[in-house]
């Protein structure tokens, strides 16, 4: 068995077993005192604001994050295109323009539906 | 080859009742006024066409009497292609005539019987549907198309048993029948798969041609599965439980479906599959054993029932046991099985209609202990029922004598232990049959009346008796009864003398040399008649000459056992359900109207498994993810461990 991938499989299995062992041992040995605080998100020691149902949750940050991701994706593809710009020639240019236009569509949607208004 | 214009129209046999059913169902209330007559006309038209085809067929030489009509290509799937086609031959024509003729009579009868039911139109639609499906079953030229009819009659029977579905127990009975039939259907499907796997086709022609060269193991398995299918449809042991409950349906339904036609489909299946059984003697023997068990079982149960319809149902079960026994005896029995099937179709349907007539006159009472001395008020019913009674007893020259006696003779044919087991059982069954059918007849029509005409007849002993005004039924009901009675009297002799019927079936069942039974024939006939008369005499002593108590006496162990169908439900319970008592609790919660018997076995097993597995469905995403991971790991391990 000189297969170079065997260690890989063994490691994967080991990692899995370790993880599972931790899970099982904590389930078997550990005391079970679950409460709300213990399972809730950690917010820098401040009590997490519960029942944000009335709209106090800052959704705006989430929308900004989402907008960021739109551009993030854009850049991921712009880099390699820029590197191989000359070789890809017209085909690359047209494809990229189409891609950018498509990326703009959700952005337009967000803008028209008021996602960019802070207040 | 001669021209056969009528035979080529055989598809109309199915199309006519089907179209009528469609009109009645789609037309809705608008057809209420004349719908029942449309149903009658459709059945009668099919019967006339059937007679036409028969006449045409009689005009042909024997070798040309088998026609395979191709309709259309139904399921072309890879190597398997199933064509829808009709097989018109003496065997299927026998059934066509029985179904359409008896069917038409029962349609007529139902016009009066169902007169006060607001859903009479729907009832006729279902009846027509049943006739169409039954004709598909017997005319099919492949197992696949036969299966369509098979399911169709199941569905129609289910609709008709549950027709008076206002009452829960009727609905339960309907469901029980459907589910037990499914067990049989499973056998049918597996048999088809086996044929496809070994022979590569499911049409009769190819299968039968190839059966000879096929491995005996496969043929045996196929044959056993076919027997299972027959058991489900024909209420044979151990799938007999549904037939008694099916009596919850309207009486014409019991007469048509649960006596004359549908329940005999299993016999048809076995006879039709003769070439398969030819190569599978074990399966054949199993069929014979099942027939023998059922014929005794039904007869014993019949002795103790007080419900007139349930007694007749038990008797049907027992008589079909005779047919299955005959079919299981192989070529010597095939023709007799079908012959008995035909005569039984007549006399049993006649008796069911008679029972319906009695119930009609007695305010829907079914308990025979509340009848008695009805012969004066219902003379036509009495006479017609009497004809059926003498026929089933096998008193010469009534129909039953000619057919049942042949089966008893055939049961005594053979070598080794078999004739000495099957023969006496068949003989004993005839005696018991004589006892319980006479019991039914005397309790109903003879003896003292166990009801009174009016409230003030003031005899002290009559105080608790119910008031009844028995009266003869209208002409629409009595005429079919008379026709069937004539059949019960004469049909057997007519077809048996000179072996007409056996010759008629020869193109299908093949010619069989005469075999001598292990006991001489005259002795057998004498013994049969003697034992029958003895049974009838005992019944007369007990139920006609002496008073019948209105409340059933305690009875012997056997009687008590027989009253509860020889504990069939309890046995089913013990075998299937008790091991999973906890499981059954869950089942009851999950489905309070669960069917009992074998269905409960299947259901409770499945429910138990379901509940157990359902616990894995905790609702926690993380446990779902764990199941997936375990699945992935196992999948990788399985693949890597079994790699080649």
């Amino acid at each position, binding site marked *: 068995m*000189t*297969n170079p*991938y065997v260690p890989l*499989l063994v490691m994967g299995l080991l990692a899995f077993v370790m993880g599972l062992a931790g899970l099982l041992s904590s389930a078997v040995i550990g005391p079970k005192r679950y409460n709300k605080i213990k399972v809730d998100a950690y917010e820098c020691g401040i009590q997490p604001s519960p029942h944000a149902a*009335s*709209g106090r949750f800052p959704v705006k940050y989430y929308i900004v994050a989402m907008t960021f991701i739109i551009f993030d994706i854009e850049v991921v593809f712009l880099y390699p295109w820029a590197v*191989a710009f000359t*070789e890809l*020639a017209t085909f690359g240019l047209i494809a990229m323009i189409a891609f950018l236009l*498509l990326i703009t569509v959700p952005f*337009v*949607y967000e803008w*028209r*539906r008021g996602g960019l208004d802070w207040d | 080859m001669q021209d056969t214009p009528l035979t080529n129209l055989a598809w109309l046999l199915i199309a006519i009742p089907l179209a009528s059913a469609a009109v009645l169902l789609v037309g809705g209330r608008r057809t209420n006024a004349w719908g029942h007559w449309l149903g009658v006309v459709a059945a009668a038209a099919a019967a006339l066409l059937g007679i036409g085809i028969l006449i045409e067929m009689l005009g042909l030489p024997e070798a040309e009497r088998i026609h395979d009509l191709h309709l*259309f*290509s*139904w399921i*072309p*799937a*890879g*190597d398997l292609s199933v064509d829808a086609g009709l097989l018109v031959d003496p065997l299927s024509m026998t059934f066509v005539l029985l179904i359409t003729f008896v069917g038409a009579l029962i349609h007529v009868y139902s016009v009066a019987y169902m007169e006060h039911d607001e859903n009479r139109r729907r009832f006729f639609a279902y009846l027509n549907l049943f006739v169409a499906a039954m004709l598909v079953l017997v005319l099919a030229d492949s197992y696949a198309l036969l*299966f369509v009819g098979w*399911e*169709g009659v199941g*569905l129609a029977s289910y609709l008709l048993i*549950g027709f008076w579905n206002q009452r*829960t127990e*009727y609905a339960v009975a*309907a*469901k029980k029948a*459907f589910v037990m039939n*499914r067990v049989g*259907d*499973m056998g049918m*499907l597996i048999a088809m*798969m086996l044929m*496809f*796997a070994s022979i590569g086709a499911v049409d009769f022609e190819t299968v039968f041609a190839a059966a000879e060269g096929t491995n005996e193991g496969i043929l045996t398995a196929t044959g056993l599965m076919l027997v299972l299918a027959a058991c489900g449809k024909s209420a044979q042991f151990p799938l007999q439980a549904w037939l008694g409950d099916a009596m919850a349906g309207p009486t014409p339904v019991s007469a048509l479906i649960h006596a004359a036609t549908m329940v005999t489909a299993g016999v048809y299946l076995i006879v039709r599959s003769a070439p398969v059984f030819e190569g599978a003697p074990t399966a054949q023997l199993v069929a014979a054993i099942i027939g023998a068990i059922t014929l005794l079982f039904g007869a014993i149960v019949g002795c103790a029932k007080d419900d007139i319809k349930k007694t007749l149902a038990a008797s049907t079960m027992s008589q079909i046991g005779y047919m299955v026994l005959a079919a299981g005896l192989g070529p010597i029995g095939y023709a007799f099985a079908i012959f008995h099937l035909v005569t039984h179709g007549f006399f049993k349907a006649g008796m069911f209609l008679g029972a319906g007539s009695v119930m009609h006159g007695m305010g829907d009472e079914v308990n025979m202990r509340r009848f008695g001395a009805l012969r004066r008020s219902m003379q036509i019913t009495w006479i017609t029922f009497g004809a059926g009674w003498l026929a089933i007893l096998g008193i010469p020259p009534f129909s039953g004598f000619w057919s049942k006696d042949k089966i008893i003779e055939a049961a005594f044919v053979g070598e080794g232990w078999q004739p000495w087991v099957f023969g006496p059982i068949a003989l004993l069954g005839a005696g018991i049959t004589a006892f319980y059918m006479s019991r039914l007849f005397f309790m109903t029509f003879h003896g003292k009346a166990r009801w009174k005409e009016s409230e003030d007849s003031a005899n002290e002993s009559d105080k608790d008796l119910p008031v009844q005004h028995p009266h003869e039924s209208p002409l629409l009901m009595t005429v079919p009864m008379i026709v069937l009675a004539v059949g019960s009297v004469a049909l057997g002799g007519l077809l048996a003398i000179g072996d007409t019927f056996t010759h008629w079936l020869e193109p299908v069942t093949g010619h069989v040399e005469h075999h001598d039974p292990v006991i001489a024939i005259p002795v057998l006939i004498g013994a049969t008649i003697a034992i029958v008369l003895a049974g009838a005499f005992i019944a007369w002593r007990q139920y006609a000459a002496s008073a019948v108590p209105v409340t059933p006496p305690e009875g012997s162990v056997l009687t008590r056992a027989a009253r509860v169908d020889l504990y069939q439900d309890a046995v089913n319970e013990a075998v299937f359900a008790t091991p999973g008592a906890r499981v059954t609790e869950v089942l009851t919660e*999950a489905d309070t109207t669960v069917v009992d018997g074998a269905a409960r076995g*299947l*259901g409770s097993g*499945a*429910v138990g498994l*379901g509940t157990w*597995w*359902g616990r894995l*469905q905790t609702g926690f*995403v993380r*446990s*779902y*993810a764990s199941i*997936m991971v375990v699945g*992935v790991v196992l999948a*990788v391990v*399985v*693949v*890597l461990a*079994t*790699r*080649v």
Partner: protein
Amino acid sequence: MTFVPPSIDWAALAPIVIVLGAAVVGVLIEAFVKDAVRRMVQVILAVVALGAALVTVAWRWTVVQAQGPAELVGGAIVEDTPALMAQGVVLICAFLGMLVIADRVGGEDGFTPVAAGAPGSTYEAQARRLGLVQTEVYPLVLFSVGGMLVFPAASDLLTLFIALEVLSLPLYLLAGLARRRRLLSQEASLKYFLLGAFSSAFFLMGLALLYGYSGSVRFADLAAAVPAMVGMDVVLLAGVVLVLVGLLFKVGAVPFHSWVPDVYQGSPTSITGFMAACTKIAAFAALVRFLYAVVPGLTWDLSPLLWTIAILTMIVGTVLAIVQTDIKRMLAYSSVAHAGFVLLGVIALTSSGISSVMFYLLVYGVATVGAFGLVTLVRERDAEGNVTGEATRVEQWAGLGRRHPVLAVCFTLFLLSFAGIPLTAGFVGKFTVFAAAVEGGAWPLVVIAVLASAAAAFFYVRMIVLMFFTDPDQDAGSTVVRTEGTTAIAVAVCAVATVVLGVVPTPILSLTSEATKFML
């Protein structure tokens, strides 16, 4: 190294381009069209796009019949008859499903007015008063259908992965948009998303392993590399198994099925019908292509696994369906069981296997859309007699056959088809699949399948008995609401198809068997 731009045959891509293009236009409509007419515009756009795509698929079918199959976009997608057949079936079911989705049953949309509003909040109540509609549903469905169209045609693992995500991501959102029982709906959405993402991670790992094994993700290259198993077979087999897990998850095969009941129950019913039908069709088509195109050389290695999964799927689906008391959940488990039956045809690995699978999927898809469409119509009443959410508890359907015979008869028809009773499409479907499996030598599976379908008849029949033969429970009274007509049309089409395919299946069967003629 010079770059050769791939030639793109736009005509061949037309079905996909039409659907995805309509989805993008739908997003722009969301941005620019006024509230009042937006819903109408979206519905028309979606229906027209699906119809046009269906017509285009039919046209491409004739082209492929004449010119043979072709590779598109540099080999990322193939156009051959199995792909077109699967696309056609997906589009038919999506079209019918769209009719159900678009229907404002009982005068109200099936979807929440504001998905972002917390259930029970004043914000939500306000939106409801204003009569807002979440019309994003329509472009989302179209995106999902776009993914489903690519899925069966993908011929490399990357395209397959992208298509998987394009079809799944919108469904995760759609699952959470129910108008009523928002908590259940959101929970369904979360579960579907998390487990879906989990399974696609496995799929991706499989992709990476297969890439490591062969240096390519093209199906053709992979197939070519399969025989050369020099000490690398562990990687190959692990990769294949992981990719299969991703596909089997979408199909809902045991043990990757646990999301199915929860998601089907919690999702808006019209969406459940759509995804139960279309996702399964697309995923099975992709599974068939993967098994046939990539790993025929591994049949012996994979068949123990596939057999086990098929058996488990049939048994678990059937058995669990028996104990359900919720109609949507019962149908969900029955769909798991159906996945098992379809797997029989897949395992057969013959050309009749492919055609039987296609036929079965069509039959199953049509009955599923119809059945869930009917579930949207049966509603509960609260104490004041107001119509509220769907009456999904089984006992609430008691006696429906007497009050609404047409509805009950249609539902019965679908149930009979699921149960495989002859003269319904389901019987022919089961028959062809079983026949194909027997032909492929898998007769023990067929025996189990026959047993399972016999047991399955139990709960279908129970439902029929309940509808026709049981007296309605007064407290659990249910009522049937009016449709705008589209659901009625969809259900009627499904019912007619169920009968026609059962009685005269020949034309469609010959079509599906032609589907195996041109396979790349």
